[in-house]
């Protein structure tokens, strides 16, 4: 029997929207805790372990405290842009999560529940577009704070994001050659049918995408726009209270976004590993969503690991890396994949 129309048309979409907003926030909370603990353990110390069990409530305490902080706007700041930029950054990151499929759709009593809010044939383009809108927030924020360090942070992030969008885009093209569609769900399904993940098929694309992804989210070793030892606190120097929390959460949300993109494009979203090995068939019984989560956690761990070990690039080296190495490499890779794909 089909479910009651009220449930189908109203309750489930509302629940899904709530899930889409909650999912990244929960991931961000876990991510903040994990980052502080993992960086601490890498550095030989304990990290927060007094707030709640093993410090799990630490991000909650941070967010709650930031909520009650005084909200300061510098006098000569451009008020409208100053207030707009944190919203721009956070909304663009959270909005992109609507198009990220979390798992296979399955049927409950005749109704197919799809684990994503909006499935669109151009899902990949939308996600990439939204993730680059976040940059505007950083630029407006840096400029609007009307002080020198944020301005330099904003200038740096402009050039950095521009030069790393190009390799990002090109590597995504190589994936589309194989999946023939830019619908995220179709990409994953295609990897399921071809019984091989694109990551193994296009290793170069994966590496270039991952490096550009780190640069896109301003994370070490590319964290120049908010380089603490040089630009005090980079573009969000003048932000305090909840506005700063928006930037803080948006940065982590953006990291989760890039990790999920990597997982979907190159490591077969929710597909269990080793599909063609008969002996490991029992892996299929574990629901797809858990696989997806495990892969994302691995990449988030990689983010933190890299941040804790590598020193920071200098600005010109960062640009040189993009223009002299990543872009030519991804262009070559694009041509090679095209030739291989259509000649073989």
């Amino acid at each position, binding site marked *: 029997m089909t479910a009651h129309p009220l449930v189908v048309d109203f309750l489930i979409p509302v629940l899904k929207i709530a899930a889409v907003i909650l999912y990244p926030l929960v991931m961000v909370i876990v991510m903040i805790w994990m980052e*502080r603990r993992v960086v*601490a353990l890498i550095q030989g110390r*304990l990290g927060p372990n007094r*707030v709640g069990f093993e410090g799990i409530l630490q991000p909650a305490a941070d967010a709650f405290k930031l909520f009650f*902080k005084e909200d*300061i706007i510098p006098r000569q700041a451009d008020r409208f842009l100053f207030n707009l930029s944190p919203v721009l950054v956070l909304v663009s990151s959270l909005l992109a999560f609507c198009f990220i499929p979390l798992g296979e759709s399955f049927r409950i009593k005749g109704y197919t529940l799809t684990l994503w809010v909006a499935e669109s044939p151009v899902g990949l383009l939308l996600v990439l577009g939204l993730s680059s809108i976040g940059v505007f927030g950083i630029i407006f924020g840096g400029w609007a704070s009307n002080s020198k360090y944020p301005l330099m942070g904003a200038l740096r992030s402009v050039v950095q994001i521009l030069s790393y969008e190009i390799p990002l885009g090109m590597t995504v093209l190589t994936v589309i050659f194989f999946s023939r569609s830019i619908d995220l769900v179709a990409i994953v399904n295609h990897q399921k049918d071809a019984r091989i993940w694109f990551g193994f098929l296009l290793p170069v694309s994966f590496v270039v995408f991952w490096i550009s992804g780190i640069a896109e989210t301003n994370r070490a070793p590319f964290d120049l726009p908010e380089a603490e030892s040089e630009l005090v*606190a980079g573009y969000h120097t003048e932000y305090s209270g909840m506005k700063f929390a928006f930037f803080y959460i948006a940065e982590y949300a953006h990291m989760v976004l890039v990790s999920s993109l990597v997982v979907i494009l190159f490591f077969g979203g929710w597909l269990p590993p080793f599909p063609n090995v008969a002996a490991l068939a029992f892996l299929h019984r574990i629901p797809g969503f858990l696989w997806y989560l495990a892969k994302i956690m691995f990449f988030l761990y990689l983010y933190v690991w890299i941040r804790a070990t590598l020193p920071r690039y200098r600005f010109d080296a960062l640009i040189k890396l993009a223009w002299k190495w990543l872009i030519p490499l991804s262009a070559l890779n694009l041509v090679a994949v095209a030739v291989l794909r259509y000649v073989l």
Partner: protein
Amino acid sequence: MNSPEDKHPFILTRLDQAITWAQKNSLWPLGSGLACCAIEMIATAAARFDIARFGMELFRASPRQADLFIVAGTLTRKMAPIVRRLWEQMPDPKWVVAMGNCAVGGGPFPTYSVVQGVDRVIPVDVYIAGCPPSPQGLLHGLMILQKKISLSHPTKDIGLRHAR
């Protein structure tokens, strides 16, 4: 009535206790150090004494995002207006810890260029003696500050705090 050592921090509390619980456990110090005490402050944040257990290891470089101003070292006359401005730049629920004899009362320098105590420039919440205070001394002072925060009523005395 409201015992500071509440067992269920999050669920069964009044708003005041919830706010103070959050403020107490997420004190982000301002990454500023004046003199010798700053080295001991960094040693407290390092691996052996690990201030991160209290959630305080995020030393914010910008005063806008800091809640706690640990004045670690000798405050000179030339530096006093800058420390005053740093304190004013910090958003409101903020606390000041005077670390070391120099910050508490001029320390071993009764000279023409040293301010005999930080409380002549900014209001101080906790004074920590020592020259420099050992990391354990600093941690003890910070725990006292946490107790002081948990006994305060944020929703009632926001206005008062400015009068101090």
